[in-house]
């Protein structure tokens, strides 16, 4: 008999006041009993609507059925057949727009906590020694540029098929945005490292400190015996608004702020990376990255942290859970406001942000109502730090050093439905193709690319 509770089985979280001052994980996860209870809410629908919402087609009802039976190891094995990084996805996917958004239990009440259950399975297996399946080598080499979620997925899927895969990572550690972008309190780095170690145990090679486009070109990789190359080089250069004052001391891009904290561990005293000790912080933007930056600033000891967003609460692109957590932690949402200028003191340090109030007009090309400034509503927000989190534009490094690789007007790599670029044998996915998007979309692209690369190499013979 299904559990007919209209709400999800509650999950333990750190108290908002406590967690707003530490970097430990916010959500503590289900116990086995809670997981079984939540799994029993699944109706095991024949038409599996949840699966249609998943970019990597996790066999959701099947794994949940195993959880309900208490067979967690089997549940995990089912997830792993299609998802290389379940511990990551269970934590950072926007489930409300994907699997859970399609769940029939969500029509009346809350959907099944699919993300929580996926995370539970992955965490449950984390400290259990799982025999690594090492595929029989098939004698073919593939190079993967970048070490983020799309690349890790490509590497995992191809390694499973017996390919000899090498990841070329620019930073000193692989993981991409999972390491430098998403904070510890949302995605512990030990978990990411564990998923990466799984790949190396499967035989994937990782070359760190290798900036492709500088130290080696794509053509040179092809000349080194790689039969195909996957480019998952990520989103790239942070955007700024082009308003006065963005060169002042105390203005960060969210990428820089988060990289200092997450990758370079500026929040830990024994690491040498510096970061500003801010009192009042304005984060401009409304996406997940903005939430991460705001909540990080709070954890570093800020008194007031504001989200400055030009549309309303309804249009915030961030995951619902992140907005909810941010509000609980005391982040102040100044929605329907847009910065027009960052103000500095005589030493060139930020001491305010001039904003203008906005109202919503007719829907624009994105389908969201267009924000319109209200004349004369300008005011100064008292802040000493401004973090710009308004997206990125693609990194020029690879496209400018790879003849035959075409990009669109935005500078994103052009690919067909198989993630194949305009250059033979070169595939691409993730933010390098889509512009800034989500981890799971990058993984979905990686999955498709891996299948296409396998086809391509098999047919070449």
């Amino acid at each position, binding site marked *: 008999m299904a559990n007919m509770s209209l709400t999800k089985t509650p999950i333990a979280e750190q108290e908002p006041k406590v967690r707003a001052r530490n970097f430990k994980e916010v959500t503590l996860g289900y116990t086995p009993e809670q997981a079984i209870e939540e799994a029993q809410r699944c109706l095991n629908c024949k038409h599996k609507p949840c699966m249609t919402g998943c970019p990597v087609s996790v066999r959701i009802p099947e794994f949940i059925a195993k959880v309900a039976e208490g067979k967690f190891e089997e549940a995990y094995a089912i997830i792993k057949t299609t998802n290389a990084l379940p511990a990551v996805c269970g934590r950072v996917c926007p489930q409300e727009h994907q699997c859970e958004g399609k769940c029939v239990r969500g029509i009346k009440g809350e959907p099944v906590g699919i993300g929580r259950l996926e995370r539970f399975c992955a965490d449950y297996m984390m400290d259990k020694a799982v025999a690594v399946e090492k595929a029989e080598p098939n004698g073919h080499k593939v190079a993967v540029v970048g070490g983020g979620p799309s690349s890790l997925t490509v590497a995992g899927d191809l390694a499973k098929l017996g390919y000899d895969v090498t990841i070329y990572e620019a930073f*000193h550690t692989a993981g991409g945005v999972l390491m430098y972008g998403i904070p510890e309190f949302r995605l512990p780095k030990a978990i990411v490292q564990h998923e990466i170690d799984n790949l190396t145990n499967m035989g994937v090679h990782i070359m760190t400190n290798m900036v492709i486009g500088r130290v080696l070109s794509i053509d040179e990789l092809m000349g080194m015996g790689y039969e195909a190359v996957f480019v998952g080089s990520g*989103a*790239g250069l942070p955007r700024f608004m082009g308003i006065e004052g963005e060169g002042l*001391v105390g203005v960060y891009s969210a*990428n820089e702020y988060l990289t200092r904290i997450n990758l370079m561990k500026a929040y830990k005293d024994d690491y040498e990376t510096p970061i500003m000790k801010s009192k009042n912080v304005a984060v401009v933007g409304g996406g997940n990255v903005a939430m991460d930056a705001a909540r990080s600033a709070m954890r570093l000891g800020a008194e007031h942290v504001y989200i400055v967003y030009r549309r309303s609460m309804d249009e915030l692109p961030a995951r619902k859970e992140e907005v909810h957590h941010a509000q609980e932690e005391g982040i102040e949402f100044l929605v329907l406001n847009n910065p027009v200028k960052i103000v500095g003191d005589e030493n060139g340090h930020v001491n305010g942000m001039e904003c203008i109030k906005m109202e919503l007009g007719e829907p624009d090309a994105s389908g969201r109502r267009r924000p319109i400034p209200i004349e004369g509503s300008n005011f100064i927000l008292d802040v000493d730090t401004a973090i710009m989190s308004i997206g990125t534009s693609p990194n*020029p490094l690879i496209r400018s050093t790879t003849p035959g690789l075409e990009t669109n007007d935005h500078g994103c790599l052009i690919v067909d439905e198989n993630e194949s670029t305009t250059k033979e044998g070169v595939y691409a996915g993730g933010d390098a193709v889509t512009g800034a998007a989500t981890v799971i979309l990058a993984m979905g692209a990686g999955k498709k690319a891996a299948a296409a690369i396998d086809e391509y190499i098999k047919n070449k013979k």
Partner: protein
Amino acid sequence: MYKIVTRKQLNDAVVLMEIDAPYIAAKAEAGQFIIYRVDEKGERVPLTIADYDREKGTITIIFQVVGASTTELARLNEGDYIHDVVGPLGVATEYDEGIKRVAVVGGGVGCAIAYPQAKKLHNMGVEVDLIAGFRSKDIVILEDEMGKASSHLHICTDDGSYGYHGFVTNKLQELIDGGAKFDEVIAIGPVPMMKFVCKVTKPYDIKTLVSLNPIMIDGTGMCGGCRVTVDGKIKYACVDGPDFDGQKVDFDELMRRNSTYKEQEKAHLCRLTGGVR
């Protein structure tokens, strides 16, 4: 891990290291840089590549000890390893075709970076005036090397203890006044020095390249920390530079941004800015 094959103390505060890094050595060009991280808990610090040996697979860096990250690097000896070295980063310096005479101006440890530029130009057959400025005689570095890499070496000291008594800008002005026709000036050193070299060359409309050293983390165009304002637009030193047309650079903003962590440095010497060259 990257092995230090040679270590030389050039003066009390300046150290030369030759590092085993075959991938970087194969591609490095004058004007490019690396980012190093001494150990797991260290900062990522950019340093310009002073020289490279493609056959040996080594690169040379020359740096001044100014704080924790460079102190830690300087503590390492021949045979020790640096945890991470990534490069070559940035765009190699591009010279205009047909240039006949160039003044390469270096200030202090910046001479370590001016030197390979001079060497490259000198090997191309360009007449090179290398103007190298130091505070005093006891910190002069690379004199022999610079002599070989230039047509005219002008060593200047602020206190007059060696060579020309005065700043590099005074010497440059004298040369111009004396009739030297420079097709280009390349200035590498402290930000104020580069700013004032540009002031000297502006009235004569001499193209002046500067090599910028902003705070940086990834060096690949991701973090945006190294942004500088050039001709009123945001440019990223790591992917668009580090060389820029000096007449268009907002040096005052660069100086301010480079001082972002000065207070923290003073309060806690272990925490430093990244932009040390």
